[in-house]
């Protein structure tokens, strides 16, 4: 495996008195796609938010290209080239679709993604560029949210609950374009409820259970039973 882009070692996260993550260890290599799976409340979203700098945690536990970034402010983390597509899309409601994309690209990092490239990837967004986010379907919103993250030309894109609440046709569309986005200098971490789908498109996976990594390995070789045990802890 090439040298890790993102390396997490011994990450603990507390929400007040409640501990959400216990000694998480995980890695992402440049250009690879990794799945994070697990039941509701297993800590998947917390993990992604911690990486994105929204939780402000211990400095040593999260490293980016060997440099500790835990505890760094979210805007600094973003400038390093880590983009988060948050759960529920969270587009800016008072910005048009095009403005949402433009603000994603405001840091001016160089790379293949600009408005034209995002519109090529998701042509519907060009049609709807003057609309408010609330006027779009859930699938279109998710496209806009992914497009907004791509506009930053990140080296790592974190996509939280990529298909949650979307129509099947929209989910299929997203998974069709996903392999084309990743690679070429961009790695991805996707959080997904649909384990089968997540394992089909990724190279490796981490399965979280009650804040701990219960199972990790190559997506292609893991058995259903092993996943089931790691998922539910039975």
């Amino acid at each position, binding site marked *: 495996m090439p040298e890790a882009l993102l390396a997490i070692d011994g990450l603990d996260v507390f929400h007040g008195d409640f501990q959400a993550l216990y000694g998480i260890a995980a890695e992402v290599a440049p250009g690879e796609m990794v799945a994070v799976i697990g039941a509701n409340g297993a800590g998947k979203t917390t993990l992604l938010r911690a990486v994105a700098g929204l939780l402000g945690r211990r400095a040593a536990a999260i490293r980016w290209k060997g440099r500790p970034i835990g505890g760094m402010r979210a805007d600094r983390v973003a400038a390093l080239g880590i*983009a*988060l597509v948050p759960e529920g899309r969270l587009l800016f*409601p008072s910005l048009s679709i095009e403005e949402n994309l433009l603000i994603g690209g405001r840091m001016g990092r160089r790379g293949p993604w600009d408005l034209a490239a995002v519109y090529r990837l998701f042509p519907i967004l060009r049609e709807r560029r003057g609309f408010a986010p609330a006027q779009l379907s859930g699938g279109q919103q998710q496209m806009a949210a992914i497009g907004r993250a791509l506009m930053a030309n990140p080296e790592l894109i974190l996509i939280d609950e990529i298909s949650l609440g979307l129509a099947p046709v929209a989910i299929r569309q997203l998974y069709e374009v996903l392999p084309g986005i990743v690679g070429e200098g961009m790695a991805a971490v996707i959080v997904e409820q649909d384990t089968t789908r997540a394992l089909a498109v990724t190279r490796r996976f981490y399965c979280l259970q009650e804040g701990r990594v219960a199972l990790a390995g190559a997506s292609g070789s893991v058995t259903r039973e092993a996943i089931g045990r790691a998922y539910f802890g039975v």
Partner: protein
Amino acid sequence: MEWVNAVVQGTLLGGLYALFAAGLSLIFGVMRLVNIAHGDLIVLAAYLALSTAAGLGLHPLAALTVVVPAMAAAGYALQRGLINRTMGGDILPPLLVTFGLSVIIQNGLLMGYTADPQKLQAGTLETASLSALGLTVGVLPLLTFALAVAVIGALQWMFYRTALGRAFRATSDRQDVAQLMGLNRAHVFGLAMALSLAVTALAGVLLGIRTAFDPAGGGARLIFGFEAVIIGGLGNLWGTLAGGVILGVAQAVGGQIHPGFQILAGHLVFLAVLAVRPRGLFPKMEG
């Protein structure tokens, strides 16, 4: 005819109130902050212009070249150094800290300039007037109104047509997601306050040319600006201009009825709007 005159004068006065209100509206829009010291900062700008004009021998309008950047810089520093520390979910800390600031500015001015009323000397601009259709209007009120329209137009353009405006709206919508776009919340808030106080500086100088001012006058200016914002509807800049005009006309007409009734009439119109249309006449945004 004197009633028509009152309405015209009140409309022009409304431009000044819209300038009081624009800065208040801006920072509320971006960071949900209500700055109790806003009126005192308007008065502070007038005193700053007084000293600049006297020290450098400038016309008060020329003094704007010093006062506007100075107030903007002070706003940025104030936000980053003090007010940002109070910005959590709780409304009490920012409210009480800006209230404390208000008392400090007021008494600081009292120490520096005494309680005697002051006025900015603007020469012929103070008395120049135009006559048409049997009405006589001062050049200064006309200029003030034109500047208010220009400032509000510029703010509107900035908000909806520029990258800075996008950053303001995005931060206003969802602060944490805005950070994911590489926006530093503290810096964005600092810029919003800088812009607010730049507008405040202009308002203060125009106020100082128009009437005498003293250190205790901040409260009334805060209230007029606030009333214009609420009458116009939260988050609507052109509504704020309309709110200022309505307030100005109410005061002018009230003063025409009875001199002691001038300010009171403005407050009563505000309360009436609050009773009938609590979200203002031209609402746009959730309060």
